[in-house]
């Protein structure tokens, strides 16, 4: 099983640990933001003052942002080597989008 990492030095290891910690920090921040976005979404709906014409697109936008955090930070799509995953995920999102669009527009007419 061609493992070519046997010669990694200690220095390397320290560097990697630092990088991992850095990444974890980003992930913590995005978690905080996600929680925040969730709060805002729930509050928007819970409050009586916000009109639906605004609330619905707004919470949808929040959901999209939150999901982007989830994908790019938690699922590492911000890292290299995720070109193929991104291609296929977005193709899926494209099909998903036109499916939902069609069902919202031409099922009941």
């Amino acid at each position, binding site marked *: 099983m061609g493992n070519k990492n046997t010669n990694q030095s200690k220095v390397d290891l320290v560097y990697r640990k630092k990088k991992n910690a850095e990444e974890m920090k980003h*992930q913590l921040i995005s*978690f905080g933001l996600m929680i925040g976005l969730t709060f805002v979404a729930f509050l928007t*709906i819970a409050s009586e003052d916000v009109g639906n014409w605004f609330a619905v697109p707004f*919470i949808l936008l929040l959901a999209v942002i939150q999901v982007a955090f*989830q994908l790019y930070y938690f*699922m590492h799509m911000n890292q290299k080597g995720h070109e193929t995953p991104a291609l296929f*995920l977005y193709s*899926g*999102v494209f*099909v998903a989008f036109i499916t939902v669009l069609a069902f919202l527009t031409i099922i009941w007419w």
Partner: protein
Amino acid sequence: MEPQKMTAETFPASPEKATLEGKNKFVGFWLFLGGETVLFASLFATYLALKNSNAGGAKTTDMFDLTLVFIATMLLLTSSLTSVYAMYHMKNFAFKKMQLWLGVTVLLGASFLGVEIYEFYHYVHAYDFTITSSALGSSFYTLVGTHGAHVAFGLCWITALMIRNMRRGLDLYNAPKYYVASLYWHFIDVVWVFIFTVVYLMGMVG
């Protein structure tokens, strides 16, 4: 051939992609998630088309309870963070810590599932709202239930991984498996974000 025992030094930076098997799992699983996206889209679309078809029964505005959904959301979101944390420890070759945080993930996930089951139970008994009562019921339970089934499957999967590798520790054979399971778990969270937004929050405003 058994994969060789590793140390923190020999453990590669991206253990999930260090072997060809790992690379294949990684790509294959992402592809699978692309397909899952479309599967859930079909269910979402159907729900959206039928969400006002309550056939005279309870409406979404009558039933949904924001507090409950909020608790469920927090549980699942947090479990996403704990599983990220577990992957952080995996990369640092800290097997025990990884297992620990996966354990926390499983507990959070299980509580989420508990809340959801309670919620369904409540709808059935308080509102007579079942999968057969109307097209709304059918599409609601199918969409949310499919998500719930994914949660349940994810729990079993992660638990099985934890038990299976308890003694063995981390190596390049099981690292991709852990990684992929955590991807799955995040994806479940992604779907939930849309469920709480599209089904529950939008369901509250009618």
